[in-house]
């Protein structure tokens, strides 16, 4: 009869992973909508195409080799097969800590949960390089990031492998619960490398060096995207507890939901107030970025803070992200959706906040981990972008950029019937 209980625990934990994974998959739609809302109408079809295609590529590459590099499991998941029930039951019975010991669940559900993470990392990139990069070059980069760069880095962190056999991040006290650094800062590092080589959009900076804002075309889409991400994040962080099936873990999952929500709320409110104070207006896009910043910040450790602490972390993130966006803009790093600030700056912030509530992490460990991730992802990405640039050029022609990449890359307008009144405003 105990075996039946193990059956149920296996089933429950598997289901929990699948549902959390489905929520994270939904984040792909969130990024697509957020980015589609923040670019100009003439570049909307292309950013949508990028988002669908990068998600598909991430899934295929991670299935092909990424998961194997990160956790084992065989090329093409060849080692993920139906569970041998008898052996698995024995495994259950033999767990340290018994029933409250580590979770045992379908490897396939683990893959499903992990694969949507890699897509998230890649989604971050598309926003930052929007409106000027060639579609196919971007997708080529997606192949490398999702197939190799991210899985390698993942193997050193969540995978527990030493970094090139040199040092182990776990040993130095690095902790990144759900991936503020491993997923978000990594994505931002790849984006930053691409953005530096790519340069800003035409018209973003005037000849005399002034910043010229380029408003996004569709605010409801951007807002929808943010809500989708907010919802999906419950799966992102909630699933990262890695077990649901006993009392303490179930409570931990619940705390993660509460804290994730609290941080997002704190971030949104903080950014709203900062925008109001600094710019005199309630800039919606900053509020959206603030909510996302709160989410990124709490991601490194959503389980140990109290709800009040989580809210405060969100507030800090919401304040910081506004200044980070403005600062990067003055540095002429053009990031149409604010991805580098939201995921990069705040991803780092998230890592550094961990030791405040989790004594297993140290500031030193967090720094070493952050540096490892950043150096690897930024460096490798820079090399790949640079090679692609040398071979094919990252950027569309000026004329294509002026007319919009929808036409040159996709041949399909996003809103063919709506007369864009500022078509000629570059």
């Amino acid at each position: 009869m105990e075996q039946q209980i193990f059956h149920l625990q296996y089933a429950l934990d598997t289901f929990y992973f699948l549902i959390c994974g489905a929520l994270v998959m939904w984040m792909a739609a969130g990024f697509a909508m957020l980015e589609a809302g923040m670019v100009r109408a003439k570049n909307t079809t292309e950013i949508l195409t990028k988002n669908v295609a990068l998600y598909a590529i991430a899934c295929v590459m991670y299935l092909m080799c990424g998961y194997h590099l990160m956790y084992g499991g065989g090329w093409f998941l060849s080692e993920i097969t139906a569970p041998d029930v008898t052996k698995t039951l024995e495994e259950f019975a033999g767990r340290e800590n018994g029933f409250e010991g580590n979770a045992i669940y379908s490897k396939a559900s683990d893959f499903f949960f992990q694969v949507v993470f890699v897509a998230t990392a890649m989604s971050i990139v598309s926003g930052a390089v929007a409106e000027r990069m060639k579609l196919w070059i971007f997708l080529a980069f997606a192949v490398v990031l999702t197939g190799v760069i991210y899985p390698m880095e993942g193997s050193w962190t969540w995978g527990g492998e030493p970094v090139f056999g040199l040092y182990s991040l776990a040993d130095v006290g690095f902790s990144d619960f759900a991936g503020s650094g491993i997923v978000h800062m990594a994505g931002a590092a790849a984006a930053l490398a691409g953005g530096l080589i790519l340069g800003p959009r035409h018209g973003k900076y005037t000849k005399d060096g002034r910043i010229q804002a380029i408003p996004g075309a569709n605010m409801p889409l951007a807002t929808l995207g943010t809500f989708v991400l907010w919802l999906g994040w419950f799966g992102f962080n909630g699933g990262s507890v890695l077990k649901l099936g006993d009392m303490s873990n179930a409570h931990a999952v619940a705390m993660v939901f509460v804290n994730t929500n609290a941080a997002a709320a704190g971030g949104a409110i903080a950014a709203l107030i900062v925008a109001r104070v600094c710019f005199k207006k309630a800039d919606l896009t900053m509020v959206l970025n603030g909510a996302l910043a709160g989410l990124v910040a709490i991601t490194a450790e959503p389980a140990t803070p109290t709800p009040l602490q989580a809210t405060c972390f969100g507030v800090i993130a919401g304040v910081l992200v506004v200044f980070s966006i403005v600062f990067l803009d003055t540095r002429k790093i053009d990031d149409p959706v604010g991805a580098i600030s939201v995921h990069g700056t705040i991803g780092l912030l998230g890592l550094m906040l961990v030791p405040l509530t989790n004594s297993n992490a140290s500031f030193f460990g967090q720094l070493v981990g952050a540096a490892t991730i950043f150096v690897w992802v930024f460096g490798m990405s820079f090399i790949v972008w640079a090679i692609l640039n040398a071979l094919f050029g990252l950027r569309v022609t000026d004329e294509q950029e002026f007319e919009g990449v929808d036409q040159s890359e996709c041949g399909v307008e996003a809103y063919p019937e709506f007369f864009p009144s500022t078509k000629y405003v570059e």
Partner: protein
Amino acid sequence: MKLISAIIKPFKLEDVRESLAEAGIDGMTVTEVKGFGRQRGHTELYRGAEYQVDFLPKVKLEIAAQAEQVDRILDVLMSVAHTGRVGDGKVFVMDLEQVVRIRTGETDMEAI
């Protein structure tokens, strides 16, 4: 016959149209345009960076009318479209050589 082309503030359109109708002028063609003039656009902030909205939305009324009606139309425009603030707009009057009503083939006076 004259063609009167008036650039006015959008929110005055409804009033102008009603007043013209009262003055016996029923036909007109309206175009949404953007105006540049003494009235300046405004600067907006988006994500902390400025951008200049140069153009101002205006509405252009084109009215074909008999020469005698021009003054009446100008009167209506001057009184109803007037706010006294910069950007109220301009009226241009041009000569119209020929008018044809497509439905009936009527021309000139009858066509208006």
